């Protein structure tokens, strides 16, 4: 049984084709990168998989763990129930900013606990302990009682991951989780996701902007262009050369000019230029 299986998925927004007849399978326990320039349909695809968006009518199906979450553009009646097995991480973190971090993490329980208890917001001591544990696992145990809006971007994203940990989903889908973060936060987030995938065998799909991260953290890459799958295979096969062929001028967006953070220190060691000028003056 595949974790995710998509057949003939198409979607247009107005006149723009966002997804064009996509079919793909993802096995359980895989860590897959979804890459593509902005506007290539990554987010749209992800939103379809977790049932936040419905396809247009046609013979499309999206199956998650063997059950259809949507078929022919109609959400399955069990979609709400199925969503709890699909943890989603968003580019803008999507925390409820006025609630505490701990409350935000506890909300991950909503799909699992009895309806009345969730609705009244009554969480057990055990659930609260697990939520704290999840925060500790992503490395921010100290912020539990802060309002979510007071955290930095990287911390908010880690809180959002803690929320999906509490949700104990079998599949984790991250929509550009690092696109609005600085490089060091971005690496931490990717490490956390890779660890979750390795230790708990949770299927991970991560949409990314930069192919660098895909090569480093994800064995498999699916590349989209204009809503079509243009590459699906081992990330190692995706060289800068093949990206150029896939995206043409658009590939610049995906290949970062050799990260400036690493180049900088070398320059400081070079003895000429600025320092010598100062000395002579």
């Amino acid at each position, binding site marked *: 049984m595949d974790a995710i299986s998509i057949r003939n998925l198409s979607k247009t927004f107005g006149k723009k084709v966002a997804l064009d007849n996509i079919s793909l399978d993802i096995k359980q326990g895989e860590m897959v990168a979804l890459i593509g320039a902005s506007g290539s349909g990554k987010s749209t695809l992800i939103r379809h998989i977790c049932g936040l968006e419905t396809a247009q009518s046609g013979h499309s199906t999206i199956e998650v763990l063997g059950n259809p979450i949507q078929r022919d553009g109609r959400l399955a009646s069990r979609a*709400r129930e199925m969503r709890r097995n699909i943890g989603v991480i*968003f580019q803008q973190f999507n925390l409820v900013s006025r*609630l505490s971090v701990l409350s935000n993490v506890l909300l991950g329980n909503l799909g699992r606990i009895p309806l009345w208890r969730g609705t009244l917001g009554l969480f057990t001591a055990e659930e609260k302990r697990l939520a704290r544990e999840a925060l500790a696992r992503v490395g921010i145990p100290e912020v539990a009682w802060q309002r979510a809006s007071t955290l930095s971007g990287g911390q908010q994203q880690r809180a959002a991951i803690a929320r999906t940990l509490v949700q104990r989903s079998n599949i984790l889908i991250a929509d550009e989780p690092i696109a609005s973060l600085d490089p060091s936060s971005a690496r931490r987030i990717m490490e956390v996701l890779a660890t979750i995938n390795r230790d708990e065998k949770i299927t991970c799909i991560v949409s990314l902007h930069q192919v660098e991260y895909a090569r480093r953290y994800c064995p498999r890459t699916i590349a989209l262009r204009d809503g079509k799958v243009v590459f699906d295979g081992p990330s190692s096969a995706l060289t800068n050369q093949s990206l150029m062929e*896939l995206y043409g001028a658009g590939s610049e967006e995906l290949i970062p000019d050799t990260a400036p953070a690493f180049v900088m220190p070398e320059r400081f060691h070079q003895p000429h230029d600025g320092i010598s000028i100062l000395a002579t003056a």
Partner: protein
Amino acid sequence: MSQIANITAADKPRVEIARDWTRSIWNALVWAVLAILLVWSWGPAEVSRWTFLFTDAGNMAQYARGFSHPNFAEWRYYLEQMVVTIQIALWGTFLAAALAIPFGILSARNVAPWYIVQPVRRLMDACRSIHELVFAVLFVVAVGLGPFAGVMALFVHTTGILAKLFSEAIEATDPRPVEAIRATGASRLQEVIFGIIPQVIPLWMSFALYRFESNVRAATVLGVIGAGGIGQVLFEAIRGFYYSEASAMLIIMLVTVSILDLLSQQLRKVFM
């Protein structure tokens, strides 16, 4: 696992999607309609009489002179009645806010389906479009002269207003946290409670407090038809040409409303 599916040269020209002319035309049309409506209303609203404001200003001054010597002899009584007015406004606003929460949620387009939104909105329109005074007359018949008729009148009218404001606040919320909660498998109600309510609480509080301020003013007017409070005393004074007494009451009202204004401003800051 499939390998490179089809590598093609990607530099085919991308076509521009045509400009949406209908929207530009709509914008222009809306402004044109507003201009036409204003011109059309000029005559019937007798706006052309605005010159009288200057030529006959003397009349106004003479009338106002009657109020220039406030008589505070009975200030204790006025203050008592002022407090009654505030108490009327307090209950009217509280009941309205409590009921405006479910009605506001049900008339928000991003929460409820249209077949619920439309009837609830029309009901709220009805509550809002009929003036407090009309409701007050109605309730005086049912519950008799006095403050409770005022409470009920404010309650019904304010429910209509707050439900609209509450639902507009809901419609302006950020949908992203709500989606995140939906993605955990939460129910529709849970999405509202945890995703929407925390976002709108400060705004709701501030709307409710603002309506409380306006209701204190409205409650004084309700005195005219005998719904209690300082309004009733004020209109009796004006009708009896006791302008100095009326003037004292107006000053008390002004000061009270200003103090309430300051207080509720401070309160709103706490909730933000």
